[in-house]
């Protein structure tokens, strides 16, 4: 992910943000009698009309099961479903549609790799290397795999600014390392990790790499071929698409070699009680009727992001995070978790003596939606000795004004607590 550097205040956004905002109906509402300021895209982004319309159109006119019927609706559904796969393939620059597996989301994609690739390939005393800043979805599947295979989990720490300690990563990569699983962008810190470099190091050590791209995909261009990663996972609902749909990119030669994870319809060629033969990629990994509407909605979301330009979204969000960081640094009672030199649009913070949940409730009364809690990254909380943080995360529809509203609302928080 290449995030252009931009100056902050007064800089012209590369996006026509007002036009973008008009595309997102959910943004135009009052919450607690205040105009909604949505700063929780890191948890789930809002959907543009184009995605809502694609979902609506499919459900109203084209719904049927895919890959089965000879009738017109089934063909329409199949065409739309497969067209979405092609859109995703082009969006992440995979070499082939065979490398694009639809899943329920990032979590399922990671579990698929752990249970299919991992169980087939790992043995006792093999090692899996993850990082201290992973989301639980990129920790627990590997812990389960370790329990099942006897493999050992190793963890690369990050420093107090939220930067991965690459020297420790190099030390911990050994001939025993079989899998490296690392997040592209930390959901709790905003850190953009040098995944290209990590992939090279891991490959030199003979390990395959899974990149958790849930937070990276919405915030800038991703090219899996240029990255040379083995697996890349992301979710639809963080990139302006629906929930319940996600993608596992896998290198074709690896996917080809992996056993199916779940069995059922669609993933087979022939079934008899003596022998079942499995379908070709990517269907081998798509057992059962998929989330057809979700895939079609994701395709529309990919079209939308492509039309805005991932580079432009990244540059816009960079302006927002720089501005928010400057403002936060000017507040004596505010602490930022994650001050990496390269960050996506995520500001994780605390206020002296005020718990993040209380901040979240008071901001909500001001119409400002943020996330509070451990962000499913409890080891990150442990690193800083806190149980929770407050997190504002940005999308292409957010503005400098939104950040000003956030900081005005923070004054209300202080007013409430410091009488």
């Amino acid at each position, binding site marked *: 992910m290449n995030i252009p550097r931009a100056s902050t205040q007064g800089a012209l956004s590369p996006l026509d943000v007002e036009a973008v905002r008009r595309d997102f109906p959910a943004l135009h509402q009052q919450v607690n009698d205040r105009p909604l300021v949505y700063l929780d895209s890191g948890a789930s982004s809002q959907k543009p009309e184009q995605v809502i319309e694609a979902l609506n159109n499919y459900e109203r006119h084209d719904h049927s099961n895919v890959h089965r019927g000879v009738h017109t609706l089934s063909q329409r559904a199949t065409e739309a479903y497969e067209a979405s796969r092609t859109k995703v393939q082009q969006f992440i620059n995979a070499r082939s549609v065979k490398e694009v597996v639809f899943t329920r989301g990032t979590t399922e994609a990671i579990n698929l790799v752990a249970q299919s690739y991992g169980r087939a390939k790992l043995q006792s005393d093999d090692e899996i290397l993850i990082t201290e800043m992973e989301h639980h979805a990129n920790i627990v599947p590997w812990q389960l795999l370790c329990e099942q295979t006897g493999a050992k989990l190793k963890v690369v720490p990050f420093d107090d600014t939220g930067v991965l300690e690459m020297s420790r990563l190099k030390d911990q990569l050994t001939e025993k390392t079989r899998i490296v699983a690392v997040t592209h962008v930390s959901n709790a810190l905003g850190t953009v990790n040098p995944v290209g470099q990590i992939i090279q190091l891991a490959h030199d050590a003979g390990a395959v790499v899974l990149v958790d791209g849930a937070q990276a995909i919405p915030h800038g261009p991703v090219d899996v071929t240029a990255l040379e990663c083995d697996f890349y996972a992301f979710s639809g609902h963080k990139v302006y698409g629906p929930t319940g749909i996600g993608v596992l990119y896998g290198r074709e030669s690896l996917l080809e070699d992996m056993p199916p994870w779940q069995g059922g319809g669609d993933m087979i060629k022939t079934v008899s009680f003596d022998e079942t033969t499995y379908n070709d990629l990517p269907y081998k990994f798509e057992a059962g009727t998929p989330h057809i509407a979700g895939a079609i909605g994701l395709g529309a979301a990919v079209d939308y992001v492509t039309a805005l330009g991932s580079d432009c979204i990244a540059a816009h969000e960079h302006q927002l995070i720089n501005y928010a960081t400057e403002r936060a640094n000017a507040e004596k009672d505010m602490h930022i978790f994650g001050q990496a030199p390269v960050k996506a649009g995520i500001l994780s913070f605390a206020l002296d*003596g*005020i*718990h*993040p*949940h*209380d901040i979240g*409730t*008071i901001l909500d*009364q001001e119409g400002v939606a943020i996330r*509070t*809690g*451990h962000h499913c990254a*409890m080891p990150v*909380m442990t690193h800083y000795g806190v*149980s*929770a943080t407050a997190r504002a995360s940005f999308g292409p529809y957010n503005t400098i004004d939104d950040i000003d509203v956030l900081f005005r609302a923070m004054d*209300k928080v202080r*007013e*409430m*607590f410091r*009488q």
Partner: protein
Amino acid sequence: MTELRDLYQAVILDHNNNPRNYGKLTLANRHAEGVNPLCGDQVNVFFRLGDDVSVKEVGFEGRGCAICMASASIMTETVKHLSVVQADQYVTAFCSLAVGENSDFTGRLDLSTLNILAGVKAYPARIKCATLAWHTARSALSKGGASVTTET
């Protein structure tokens, strides 16, 4: 902000800043831990019960939001010197009050202090913050100290 002040009353902020009966009891003979896995709030509640099965000493420690900490503090003040049966009645009464309902004990117990926390009923996402310490107390007193979670 007026409504918010119902939630964050001065008394609640005072309990949050200066929690009563805070700390582990060295002579505790009952203990339970309560967690809210969704947000990371955690409380440990300790009791020393006398031979007459009443609360001689109570203490808590943990971390959480102002509502969670204040509610835990108020809980300890409420149940101190009560019998286990009476304490359990207060747990029932409080958990009903937090969701804006009456319980069998509502008219029979003095709930004036607990009413300070009644504002939480307007914030559904925060009710679990208020009830965590009370459920944990009940577990310590009557369920053999099984861990309590807000998500079951």
